[in-house]
């Protein structure tokens, strides 16, 4: 089997996903196109070599509808010969897009492809593409559908994380993200989003609060308590996990991932493609895996899929230098850390979505790029990237520097 390598990656900064967010004026297509232009410019890439653009997008409707991958590639000037496909596995779509690009290279079917993703949550809106599994009684009931926040609270309750625990994790995320920016760790990969005149619209992640502290977070009310109690979801949670007598609601906007706009792209190719481009590979995509897991906990898939991807890579936990797990909710990360007894110093070392936000379809590609930069900066070798996914799924990828 051929090997797939990462040759480059970029991401936009993440803008607050509301009407007053800096990227609200930028269309989803343009956001995606800017990452593709950057990939092209940084390597002076002959884009005719690109055989596919795979973009994750979770709400592919409105301006993001009708295959935004092909649309963004066309807008970026990749020309008529470069096809594109949009995929959706909820929050892991961006990582899945990279995995799918890699899979095409590994299969020998393609030499060079781009994986990435885009989400303008301020313009399209979460849930805009409909939500059959949440609304259709014939599936929603049997699959224990709950809003993710309630599932995150169930995880916290079941595995014993207090409000203090989740808030403390949030403070750490903000501190780490802020420090990373201050030390310039993100500079090589974050491309400023610019207007048509070349003026910068946004250059840095917009939602980091370096001053976040326990006291400030403590003043926030649990966001999912009312929904859980009045909407019946707590009863669903305790039905599915009867060892939990009641759900302790600990999550709020301050310890959950932020709603933001953003895009990312990763250039993936074979050794041969590297030669054709005249570029050295930065890392090998060693293995990837997808999994379905507990529907009610919903967000513990990373634990299961980590075990699976390690098996596929014939590696052990100790072979991984850095772990990057999307910070959908603080309890998701704390459970992961607990399940594998991980040293917090090797997990989400530069902060994550609690501080910087989670542009759904793009995040997977973003965090893969972030951890690759960190491996290079620290001279480490291997990283495992994973995300929890709605409907109880999980996706993971192991990369290894070459």
């Amino acid at each position, binding site marked *: 089997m051929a090997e797939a390598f990462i040759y480059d990656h970029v991401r936009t900064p993440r803008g607050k996903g509301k009407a007053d967010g800096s990227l609200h004026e930028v269309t989803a297509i343009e956001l995606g196109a800017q990452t593709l232009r950057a990939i092209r410019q940084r390597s002076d890439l002959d884009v005719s070599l690109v055989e596919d653009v795979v973009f994750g997008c979770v709400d592919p409707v409105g301006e993001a509808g009708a295959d935004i991958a092909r649309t963004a590639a066309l807008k970026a000037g990749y020309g008529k010969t470069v096809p594109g496909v949009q995929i959706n596995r909820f929050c892991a779509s961006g990582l899945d897009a990279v995995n799918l690009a890699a899979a095409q290279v590994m299969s020998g079917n393609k030499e060079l492809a781009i994986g990435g993703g885009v989400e303008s949550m301020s313009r399209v809106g979460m849930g805009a593409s409909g939500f059959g599994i949440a*609304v259709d009684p014939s599936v*929603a*009931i049997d699959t224990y*559908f709950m809003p993710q926040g309630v599932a995150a609270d169930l995880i916290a309750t079941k595995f014993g994380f207090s409000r203090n625990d989740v808030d403390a994790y949030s403070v750490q995320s903000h501190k780490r993200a802020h420090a990373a920016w201050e030390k310039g760790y993100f500079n090589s990969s974050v491309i400023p989003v610019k207007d048509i005149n070349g003026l910068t619209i946004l250059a840095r992640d917009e939602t980091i609060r370096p001053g976040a502290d326990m006291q400030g977070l403590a003043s926030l009310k649990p966001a999912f308590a009312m929904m859980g109690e009045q909407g019946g979801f707590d009863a*669903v949670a305790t*039905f599915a996990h009867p*060892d939990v*007598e009641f759900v302790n609601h600990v999550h709020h906007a301050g310890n959950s991932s932020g709603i933001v706009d953003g895009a990312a792209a990763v250039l993936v190719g074979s050794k041969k493609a590297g030669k054709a481009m005249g570029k050295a590979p930065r890392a090998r995509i060693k293995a990837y895996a997808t999994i379905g897991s507990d529907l009610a906990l919903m967000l513990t898939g990373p634990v299961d899929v980590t075990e699976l991807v390690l098996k596929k890579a014939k590696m052990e936990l100790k072979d991984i230098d850095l772990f990057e797990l999307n910070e959908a909710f603080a309890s998701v990360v704390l459970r992961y850390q607990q399940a594998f007894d991980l040293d917090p110093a090797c997990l989400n070392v530069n902060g994550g979505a609690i501080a910087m936000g989670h542009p759904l379809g793009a995040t997977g590609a973003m965090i893969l790029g972030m951890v690759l930069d960190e491996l290079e900066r620290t001279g480490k070798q291997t990283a495992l990237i994973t995300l929890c996914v709605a409907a109880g799924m999980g996706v993971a990828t192991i990369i290894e520097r070459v």
Partner: protein
Amino acid sequence: MKLANFRFETDADGIALATWDMAGRSMNVITPEVMSDLETIIKAVAEDAAIKGCVITSGKPDSFSGGADLTMLQGLGVEYARLVKSKGEEPAMSYFFEESRKLSLLFRALETCGKPFVAVINGVCLGGAFELALACHHRIVSDDPKTRVGLPEVKVGLFPGAGGTQRAARLMQTGDALQMLFKGEQIKGLPARNMGLVHQVLPKEAMVEAARDWIKAGGSGVAPWDEKGFKLPSNKVHSPAGMQIWPPANAIYRRETQGNYPAAQAILSSVYEGLQLPMDLGLRVESRYFAKILRSTEAAMMIRTLFMSMQDLNKGARRPKAEPATSLKTVGVVGAGFMGAGVAYVTANAGMNVILVDRDQEAADKGKAYSHKLMSDQIMKGRAKTADREALLDRITATADYSALAACDLIIEAVFEDPKVKDEVIRKIEGHIRPGTIFASNTSTLPITGLAKSSKAADKFIGIHFFSPVEKMMLVEIIMGKKTGDAALAMAIDYVRAIKKTPIVVNDARGFFANRCVLGYIAEGYEMLLEGVPPAMIEAAGRQAGMPVGPLSLNDEIALDLGLKIMKATEVQLGPNAIDQRQKAMLVEMVDKLGRMGRKAKKGFYDYPEGAPKRLWPDLVKLQPAHLKPEQVDMTMLKNRLLAIQALEAARTVEEGVVTDPREADVGSILGFGFAPYTGGTLSYIEGLGAARFVAMCDALAKSYGPRFKPNKQLREMAKAGGSYYAATKAA
């Protein structure tokens, strides 16, 4: 026009009046003949150019109709089963589907015949009858306080399958429609209009004229949803509004039903899918779900127990036929404590006079004050007027004078549950009552035959076991002592019917029927605790199995010290092997050492913090000799155990002759202790699984968990012979 169940006349204005008035029935009911008449009427109205529209009303003075004849639906199931055997699954299902949606198609034909129909409703109009009304283009109900409309099908495991879900959800906001369909409540005239279910509320004399006027004024014969540009009350299903409605609706279904009621889930799906379709297709989808639900075990069992059997028992099915009608004007209640006070209230509330006697005037007055309190609560809720309270209190005479009992037609003794106290009181009462007066003793634990020994007339002596709180619990156990005669039984049944509760008649044995089953449930909870099952899972298993509360909660409500007392008494009487010493040790720890006696002590298996929900006592796990991890516990097994232990006890009461009629075990278990209603009751649970399967399950449980799960001989033999409790009763 030949009609068997309707009168049909057309006035000078060309407005037809179809008056539904079935001969030989006090209430109209939808039968195949009624459906055929309706078809004729619809055809006549549609085709006769001289007829402008039609008013449908009832010829019965106090009611429109109670709905469809459920035996008609049962008959369909029998035919289906026959066809499966003779022609195969698919042709049988095809027949069943078409037949089960005939009523829906008939109503749709009425709705789309081109001429306006008006429903004029006085009194009850429920189920299929209200679905008929919903298919009419205009609905007028009377302002009579007895008028009720509604779709109560879900209460017997069905759902409104003749357009009810589709029309309700097109008339009302989706959330309101779902709530109405879920609850199956009967709705009075004015609220029905406010909900948008009917158009006008009028005095009954004015209704037909108003209906005619509406047609004359050009009332449309096209339903709103058949008009172009019709907008759903809650907008589209797939919309931000829909996201606010559907996920919580699905979750609340889980919360309210624990997933045990397929009919309620079918309501959700019918509405969800139907609202995305034009009316005819929406009705078709509703029919598909209806055909499925109609064939469900839950529907079969719930219809049998909660409709048929309940109706039979409420009508006095067990009353000795030869006994003449009794005259019940004045009831003596002796003992004005919590039970006696409740008995006095329900008796006076039913219009009877009550002589409430206790040892002194103060105690008697205190008992009467309970009625004052209950009526005041009703007044606060707007369900009664001050005058009602005064009238009810006037019917209760509180006194310490036993001689007042001479006026009574029936005596109910409700003094402290102590054989000595009871003996004394029985003798004292009998010194004052008229000879031949029926004497009922309220007891939950003392054998009636024993108490009857205190009486001069054991044939007139009977047990009446009320459940607590009396005013809320709908079941009454009537206990036959060895010598109790038919006159006493007839009187007891007449009394229970008069207070609008459901009687079951059981023979004398320790614990009678209901309490025996319940004790098994609670004891199984102890067993699980001792095995190391996490307490939250024990409680969840009880609820998920369909019980109103978990076994530990129930124990807290009853009080742990009571259980310990019974256990110690049993040990003294029957020796140390008669009880489970491990269970006793745990109770001794809880009650004697820790004072955790239950809700009354604000601590038991649960803590009861002020102003906050109760929570399992965190240290309970420390009393457990073993601990299982959640993933080691099989919830299905727990649920099976909790239901099977009760069903087995019920089966034993049948073998012992305590219960002689399966209807009583089933109705009694649901009304008495909330046994998983979707099963149809303790014996129907066995039959729903199949007796053979149930026996096999219990044998397996006995192997793993102990001989308490061993099926009794009669059950085993019945299972082997492929028999059933109901078939056996019918044969006898």
